[in-house]
């Protein structure tokens, strides 16, 4: 267990650093993929193989792939110029202040036990399914609506409109 946890943490953080650090956007997406593998591993360690599988299927198989497509449609292979110093400093300050505040709060928590106390069957996929269709049925329906909306929206927004060459469309140029 311990090895799995350490591996998950290392994978995740390394991937994350690559994802935000790489100047080439393709590398960044690749970093995201590694990071998500680590997260999936962490889910496994935390006792939910089902969620880990979903993470791999939807996140790595869906979102990351979609991002790769988006990159290919736009700025593939292009090295972006380095960010301005001021911006990176602001970002670092923001992240660090947040980190400091978070650590202070987490360490202020009372000590917790280190192993699950609940019986195994509560973790089972059946229980998840029961809860989804019983307690969270409304949310479940709402989520399907969200996905429908996303499909409609993505198609509507991305569909090439004749008007994009509207003479006034470039109004902002100056």
């Amino acid at each position, binding site marked *: *267990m*311990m090895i799995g*946890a350490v591996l998950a943490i290392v994978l*995740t953080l390394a991937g*994350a*650093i690559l*994802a*935000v650090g790489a100047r080439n*956007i393709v590398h*960044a*997406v690749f970093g995201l993929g590694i*990071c*998500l593998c680590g*997260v999936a591993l*962490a*889910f496994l360690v*935390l*006792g*939910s193989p089902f969620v880990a599988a979903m*993470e791999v299927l*939807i*996140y790595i198989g*869906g*979102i990351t792939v*979609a*991002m790769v497509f*988006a*990159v290919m449609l*736009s*700025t593939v292979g292009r090295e*972006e*110029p380095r*960010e301005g110093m001021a911006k990176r400093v*602001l970002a*670092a300050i*923001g*992240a660090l202040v*947040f*980190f400091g505040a*978070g*650590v202070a709060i*987490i360490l202020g928590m009372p000590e917790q036990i*280190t192993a699950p106390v*609940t019986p195994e069957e*509560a*973790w089972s996929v059946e229980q*998840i399914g029961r809860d989804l269709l019983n307690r969270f049925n409304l*949310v479940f329906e709402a*989520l399907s609506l*969200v*996905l429908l909306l*996303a*499909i409609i*929206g*993505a198609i509507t*927004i*991305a569909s*090439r409109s004749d008007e994009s060459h509207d003479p006034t*469309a470039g109004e*902002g140029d100056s």
Partner: protein
Amino acid sequence: MTLHAWMVFALTLFCIGLYGVIARRNLIAILIGIELMLNAASINVLAINYFVSPEPAVGQIIVLFIIGLAAAEAAIALSIILGVYRQRASIDVTLLEELRG
């Protein structure tokens, strides 16, 4: 591994994501940062679920929903980013400064 360690781990991931959101120029890179933030929250939820929750199914369901919502969000965001690319032939966020004041 204690719950504290897991939560600090999640926080670290969250802050890396936050840095990416604020620092990167590329719109897709910003979106990647946001995905990292969402995953950090997921790890948090599952860790808490693992250590304290009386009903372990609930935490897993939350994470499942987060994944689903993230997928939808990414789809919409990517199509909007492509729209930006079509207009400006670039997805550099520093070009998005025409609306201001």
